[in-house]
């Protein structure tokens, strides 16, 4: 164990997390083993069982979860694809004295309440909203805009609401890579894309992971954006949990659903991480740092090192 003064720094956070995170989650897990006693009761735990989990694993849960997962993955992917060039541009191309203002601009949406922002999109995308009227007036579309209450609308809202959470960690990560490494890479003969994919991106990897998790996890639990803009097409599993706690007043079943949701999200992230790890395996092999003797010339992955050594010499 570390010396106590250092440990003391973390005490406020530990206490906070223990009281307001571990304890509530523990209660949810505990409730999930109980049952609903009669119509005016919400939960009781005098008989413990796993029956609520069996009830929660219904076709309704799976089809709702499928929809949630689709929104989660598509939304996160879009945020990553849109956020990465912007973050790179902000961190690398823009003059340093202008970065502050750009970060402030990225954060502007957060100045307004989440729900108000989302409802703003609902007003914009409505068939008789001004976007629709404008597009018809200039002849881009023939009839009214038919975007509201579709998955496209959900994705528009999701990208809008979550993009800052993707851009900020990416910006920090790209910024930390630093110019000298990129220059060194170019000096060694690598082009722009090679430098990006073999130097900048691997070093910014933790930022990418942070951004993806920061967007994906809250998105899986968010049902406001999806229902406001997607209507029936924005059915999310978070609503299912809320409906058990509120409308059905069945806290036991709601808790079991919440625990399942936590487990499934964890599993999804694990599967996602495993897939990324497998995809990157050959690249990592190619990029591995070789200390000592150069590998035998017949080894194909060594081609890159040879190339670099040749240029260096």
């Amino acid at each position: 164990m570390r010396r106590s003064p250092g440990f003391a720094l973390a005490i406020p956070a530990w206490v906070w997390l223990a009281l307001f995170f571990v304890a509530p989650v523990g209660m949810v897990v505990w409730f999930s083993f109980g049952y609903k006693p009669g119509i005016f009761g919400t939960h009781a735990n005098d008989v413990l069982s796993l029956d609520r989990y069996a009830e929660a694993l219904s076709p309704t849960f799976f089809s709702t979860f499928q929809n949630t997962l689709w929104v989660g993955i598509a939304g996160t992917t879009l945020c990553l694809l849109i956020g990465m060039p912007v973050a790179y541009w902000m961190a690398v191309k823009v003059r340093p004295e202008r970065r502050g203002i750009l970060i402030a601009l990225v954060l502007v949406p957060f100045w307004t309440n989440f729900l108000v922002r989302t409802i703003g999109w609902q007003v914009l995308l409505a068939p008789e909203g001004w976007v629709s009227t404008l597009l018809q007036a200039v002849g881009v579309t023939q009839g009214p805009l038919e975007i509201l209450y579709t998955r496209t609308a959900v994705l528009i809202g999701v990208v809008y609401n979550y993009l800052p959470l993707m851009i900020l960690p990416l910006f920090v990560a790209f910024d930390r890579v630093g110019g000298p490494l990129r220059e060194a890479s170019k000096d060694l003969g690598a082009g722009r894309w090679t430098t990006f994919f073999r130097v900048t991106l691997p070093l910014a990897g933790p930022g990418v992971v942070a951004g993806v998790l920061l967007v994906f996890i809250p998105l899986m639990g968010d049902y406001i954006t999806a229902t406001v803009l997607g209507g029936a097409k924005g059915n999310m599993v978070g609503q299912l949990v809320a409906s058990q706690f509120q409308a059905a007043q069945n806290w036991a079943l709601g808790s079991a659903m919440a625990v399942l949701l936590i487990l499934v999200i964890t599993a999804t992230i694990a599967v996602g991480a495993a897939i990324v790890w497998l995809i990157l395996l050959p690249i990592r092999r190619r990029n591995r740092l070789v200390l000592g003797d150069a590998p035998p010339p017949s080894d194909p992955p060594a081609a890159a090192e040879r190339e670099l050594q040749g240029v260096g010499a």
Partner: protein
Amino acid sequence: MSESRTHVRILASDGAARVIRSELTRRGFLGLAVAAGGAAVLAACSPGGGASPGAQATGGAVEDSLTIYTWGDYDAPELLEEFTSSVGPTITLDSFSSNEELISKLVAAKGTSGYDIVVPTGVFIPQMIENGLLSKLNLDLIPNIEHMDDAYLGRAWDPSNEYSICKAWGTTGFVYDKTVITRELTTWADFLDAAQNEASGKTSVLDDPGDLTGIYFWANGIDWNTDDEAELAACEEYLVTSLAPHLSAFDSYPGGSAIPQGTQVLMQSWNGDARLGILESPDPDRWQWVLGGPDTEIWMDNWAIAAGAPHPEAAHAFINFILAPENALVELDYIGYHTGAKDIEQAAADEGLPMLDFVFFTPEQVETMHEGEVNEAQERRVEIWNATKAAAGA
């Protein structure tokens, strides 16, 4: 006092806090009610309060503030201001979006919620009384109750208005776009048929388990409070396979945006909300309101005072104030629902308020409106509601 002491002993014998937290059992709640109403606790949180929940307000001095916990945008702002300027207390408003939310907050606070006035829907009141969440009204302090229509007093959930007085009541019907649906729709069966034809993919239903399953039950002449599993299963089958693929939204307030913005073609809607939406529509003639037939819902929200209310005198003064005939009319104009006041239909007509056919119904129509129940089928209805949502989102 000895009675409270007995109850405190019961509370103690219940032991662990966990048991008290699993409140909704009767015993837990008795303890809770007394915890809220017991002299010591009240003395701590309500300096002017009496010894029991029933005798909180005695007509003494009105406190200087009042907290109202109600549905969103449910009272005319000018009345709230007028109350403060003429009677004195400053008003703090807080809102909930479902009775369950209101109940869970009052339960969690165990009489210390700080709310004075709450506005539960009638069918939830027996549960709230039984669990000690409401305190008795002192009707001597609310003489304006004489302006209420007897038809809206003494309802089944509170036969002698000991705890509650009607705040507003409404019903459920639907609104359709006459430019798309050119035939005349009159019943819930017509609604279901149009949803699967002209209005497919442009239909919304209320985001509420009872109202969603109600469409099927009302259309088929079945009691919408049924707990018969065969009927519930048939309802689920129909909603999931026949109706869900045609739904585009579950929207409890289409009047807020869907009607003014022309998002949907067919919308299940509460009468006051439909009225507001059509009033705000740039093209009101496009929309047709239909009271659902042959049967539909009636719901009634009620003024009530939370147990342990810190400002009981102000709360009584406010309820009395809002029931005055001239104020009832302002309320009706603002929210678009009947407040249950006597002769208000004539007064509203004299005042020239618009679209009163959304607010007032003939006695024959009122005959077809039935109250919902919070009964054993509630969980099953939630299940059907979730299954329909899942099918509509697929």
